[in-house]
């Protein structure tokens, strides 16, 4: 028989157990947060001293104090450019097709399954694919173009998913109103769906690029070099024909590979460089994430369905 005394004791026991579990949960959070804080603290302690102006405009060198990340961040920028220009048209196109044009048949299901599967493929396998296909089969060599295409394949699932979600958020009434006025499917997409989903897509693309900028394994596999003391040739020059595409086929390096190279050396001076470069890379990634989140916030505010 449950007296009020037993009930009170039971309730107290429950409360205590709940509190205990809550404390356990907080402890787990704390452990994870401490690990993250230790990581950043270590990066800062090791690397902040090296973050002076010269670091950003010097080439890597055999001497740790004189080594810089110029070729690395320029390389990262150029590779990101190629990646964005390759992944966005294809990813957005695929997303539009899957959301607006596809009928529920085997083809759409096949494409969806593949997109889901590709999202789970380890990044190093994209590097192997690019090595076999782009570097040797198509003869593009170990160049900025190959790197951009490799990373574009890597982030393609992310761009497709982001595009689909952005398009799905557009209410059907808008589409139906346009159809009701006699618009063709492409007109509806181009003039009504795309403008409204543009901010969402942009957010997704920026997040995907933030992921791509930190990828190391596929680029090492295709042969990005780690000691580059030159920059890819400039796209514009003073002589005819004034614009060229040589920079696409030039050898290159990127930030994460430079970090990897420096960390693999036994000299602690280079470890400090690696920490400093790590800070820059994490800063770039955080900036891109913040940009994407701010865009999403602004877009949500302006939309009035």
């Amino acid at each position: 028989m449950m007296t009020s005394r037993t009930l009170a004791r039971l309730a107290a026991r429950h409360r205590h157990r709940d509190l205990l579990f809550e404390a356990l949960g907080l402890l787990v959070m704390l452990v994870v947060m401490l690990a993250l804080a230790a990581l950043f603290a270590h990066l800062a302690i090791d690397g902040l001293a090296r973050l002076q102006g010269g670091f950003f405009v010097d080439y890597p060198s055999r001497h740790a104090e004189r080594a810089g990340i110029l070729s690395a961040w320029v390389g990262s920028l150029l590779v990101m450019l190629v990646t964005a220009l390759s992944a966005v048209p294809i990813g957005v196109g695929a997303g539009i097709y899957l959301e607006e044009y596809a009928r529920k048949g085997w083809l759409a299901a096949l494409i969806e399954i593949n997109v889901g599967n590709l999202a789970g493929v380890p990044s190093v396998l994209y590097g192997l694919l690019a090595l076999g296909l782009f570097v040797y089969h198509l003869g593009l060599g170990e160049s900025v173009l190959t790197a951009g295409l490799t990373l574009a394949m890597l982030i393609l699932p992310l761009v497709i998913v982001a595009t689909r979600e952005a398009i799905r958020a557009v209410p059907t009434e808008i589409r139906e109103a346009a159809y009701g006025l006699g618009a063709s499917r492409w007109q509806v997409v181009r003039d009504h769906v795309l403008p409204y989903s543009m901010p969402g897509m942009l957010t997704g693309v920026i997040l995907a690029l933030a992921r791509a900028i930190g990828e190391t394994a596929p680029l090492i596999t295709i042969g990005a070099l780690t000691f580059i003391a030159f920059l890819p040739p400039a796209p514009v020059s003073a002589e005819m024909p004034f614009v060229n595409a040589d920079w696409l086929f030039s050898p290159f390096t990127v930030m994460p590979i430079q970090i990897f190279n420096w960390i693999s050396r036994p000299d602690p001076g280079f470890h400090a460089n690696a920490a400093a470069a790590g800070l820059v890379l994490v800063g770039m990634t955080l900036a891109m994430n913040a940009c994407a989140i701010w865009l999403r916030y602004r877009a949500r505010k302006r939309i009035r369905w």
Partner: protein
Amino acid sequence: MASLLLLAASSAVLITVAIVVILVGESWGFFAQVSLREFLTGHEWTPMFAEPRYGIAPLLAGTVTVSLIALLVAVPLGILTAIYLSEFARPRVREVVKPMLELISGMPTVVFGYFALLFVTPWLQRVIPGLPGYNMLSAGLVVGLMIVPYISSLSEDAMRSVPMHLREASYGLGASRFQTALRVVVPAAMSGIVAACVLAISRAIGETMIVAIAAGQQPNLSFDPTETAATITAYIVQVAMGDLPHGSIGYRSIFAAGLVLFVLTLFFNICGYWLRRRYREAY
């Protein structure tokens, strides 16, 4: 216009086909020279020696050991975090914790590798005397840290999608929050939680940079975490950094290793996908 878009959409299929074709194609050349039996049952992986041996077991042992350690860390932390966030946490705590977890999952893995080599390893060396500079334990621990957001966010999704009325029925019968979480919500979300762990396994197996930096690049058939070893992924990167003539057997060996990796992750991804469909359909 529709056909252009269809072409773009079929790129996903084309890429998958290309991966399979390239991996199988180059491995075909590899297996023309190395017997499948030696590959699967051999105990040494020494492609660079004068007398090369091609047994994948050392690489598999490295991959399995690192992934196991990572899971031992990430599964408890991740599931506890998910239970806490979904059943107990106040909104304020959630606002702090979720961005932090997203931060972890967005960080470049080289930075984690730096952390493993220059912070975790020296710290472990104080606890375990005689630990070599490159070891699987420190790599495994950091891979585990990196995977916690995967497990926690997928598990939390699974737990969130358990209908409220199940919880309310439990509370109505006088259960505490702890009892409800453990006896009602977690069993109901179990297939989603298991899916999260399976997908995390796939991620751990495919991790490259942390193990390449912190676990070393010496293939070693051992499950002892205090030893140096190489994983499948670290081997691929190590060879790709060197100079191997295109078409040589050493070059082809990375494709064979890549094929094994592809099959492993495909298996776990399919398991995870199937499990997720099961929990989504239940509601």
